[in-house]
């Protein structure tokens, strides 16, 4: 038996019996452990409700128990694909509350580490985007490049994923000898590689057909749902915390903020969200070159008392992570433990808009949508 039905936007569908599908929590393309309950009519979704929390580790509660300096390694686990920027956010929150000034060389080390981390994260996003819609090869290429950065970061701080490199007051260690030259050699190799990825993936006809015009987020909806970072910029909003609410030494560097142009479909579609990240890798490379060239001499960490006790107060700290503006709300009550820490992450905002976008989308496009938002499940759950 069939029914004639209409979606909200007036499109008619040839309706058959509605099916409820379960996707996840263990699913290779959901970028971590998360689950969707899909109501579908054939291949067309009526809704996809996200069920999150499988990776909830109560990181915010842990912060209240381990103290200001002890919390740093836990911030690695908030977003383990881009731990450097989360490190930085926590360090900044603690420093502002405690009135600590980071030495200039320390800030430069942070920027170098953070931008390497950003390239790392965007490489994974771009590679996984291809893989999720069926192009396996680009993923292996992206991971190959990512390994080179992992090697560099391992040399910097001994870890390949959960870095714990930054400290309240600066960074744990100075750059190892010859590190700058190694990064430059990597960049010389990497910048042409981005063009290669462009040829291999971005302008591939099948890739464009799968992504262009799919799951368009308008500027208004992006702001209403508080999308941040590349997801927001893909919808045409030129807003980057590094540029518009500057922190660290970012004002000293020249870089552009790429936005979605709707080149193949309309502004804010899946392809735009992908291409913004590709352009951002080039900008990160630009920042890295400038940071290495202008690297000042001096200490990398300020003198911070062992028993760190910022005076009572509260702040909102914003940091541009690869998944966008990460907003930290931190309350200090004058003791050696934070009173309250709340982290609103980019993936959290992106997950909450999926239910609205899923209406009328094909089941197969849901995977493309999740990948285009670059959602990392642990960052949603914390």
């Amino acid at each position: 038996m069939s029914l004639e039905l209409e979606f909200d936007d007036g499109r008619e569908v040839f309706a058959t019996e509605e099916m409820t599908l379960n996707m996840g929590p263990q699913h290779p393309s959901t970028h971590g452990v998360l689950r969707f309950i899909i109501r579908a009519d054939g291949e067309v979704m009526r809704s996809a409700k996200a069920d999150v929390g499988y990776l909830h580790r109560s990181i915010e509660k842990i912060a209240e128990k381990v103290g200001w300096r002890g919390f740093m390694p836990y911030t690695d686990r908030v977003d383990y694909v881009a731990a450097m920027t989360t490190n930085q956010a926590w360090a900044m929150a603690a420093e502002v509350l405690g009135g600590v000034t980071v030495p200039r060389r320390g800030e430069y080390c942070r920027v170098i580490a953070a931008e390497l981390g950003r390239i790392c994260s965007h490489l994974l996003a771009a590679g996984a985007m291809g893989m999720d819609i069926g192009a396996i090869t680009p993923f292996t290429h992206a991971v190959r490049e990512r390994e080179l950065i992992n090697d560099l970061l391992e040399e910097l701080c001994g870890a390949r994923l959960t870095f714990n490199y930054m400290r309240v007051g600066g960074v744990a260690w100075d750059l190892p000898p010859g590190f700058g030259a190694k990064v430059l050699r990597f960049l010389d190799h990497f910048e042409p590689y981005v063009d290669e990825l462009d040829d291999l993936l971005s302008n591939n006809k099948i890739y464009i057909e799968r992504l262009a015009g799919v799951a368009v987020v308008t500027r208004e909806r992006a702001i209403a749902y508080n999308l941040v970072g590349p997801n927001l910029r893909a919808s045409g909003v030129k807003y980057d915390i590094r540029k518009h609410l500057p922190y660290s030494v970012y004002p000293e560097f020249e870089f552009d903020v790429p936005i979605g142009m709707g080149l193949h479909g309309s502004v804010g579609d899946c392809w735009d969200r992908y291409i913004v990240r590709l352009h951002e890798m080039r900008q990160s490379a630009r920042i890295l070159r400038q940071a290495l060239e202008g690297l000042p001499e001096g200490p990398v960490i300020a003198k911070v008392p062992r028993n760190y006790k910022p005076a009572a107060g509260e702040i909102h700290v914003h940091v541009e992570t690869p998944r966008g503006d990460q907003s930290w709300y931190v309350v200090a009550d004058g003791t050696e433990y934070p009173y309250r820490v709340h982290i609103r992450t980019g993936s959290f905002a992106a997950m909450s808009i999926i239910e609205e976008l899923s209406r009328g989308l094909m089941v197969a496009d849901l995977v493309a949508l999740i990948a285009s938002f670059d959602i990392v499940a642990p960052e949603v759950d914390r």
Partner: protein
Amino acid sequence: MKTEAIQLLLHERFGAAVGPVESARLSESVEVDASAVAEIALFLRDDPDLAFDCLSNLSGTDRPARGKIQITYELFSYVHRRAFILKVDARRDRPEVATVENVWPAANWLEREVYDLLGVVFVDHSDLRRLLLPDDWVGYPLRKDYVEAPEYHGISTVRPSALKLPEPK
């Protein structure tokens, strides 16, 4: 526009529901009534001079000493590129706050998170369920007096410290 000017605008329109500017170290905010927050939010969004089109963060903080749970709304205007912090105190024994989900859809999940971890009820919320914890979880972990249950469905929530050697038998 500074926090004082925004407070003045709000006070003119909503009277006693809007408190004075509160200056904590490093941050300024305005406290409003829990029942009036939805109307005030709508005004903050739609007034062209304010135009706070984005709810960039919503956090809950338990303050047992004052008998309150404090909700902090961080608003941002992409039109004027500025932020504003709004606060609401909910009674700890009966925490109820009007939802702002209809003003900023981003509040849907953020409010669910606060409900999940602090037990604040957002009145008229369309889908107020736990977000991060399992539906049958008991208690609200981010409350300061929360005591963890010893087990959850037969799974122990404690384990022996890895730093201590087991007692000899």
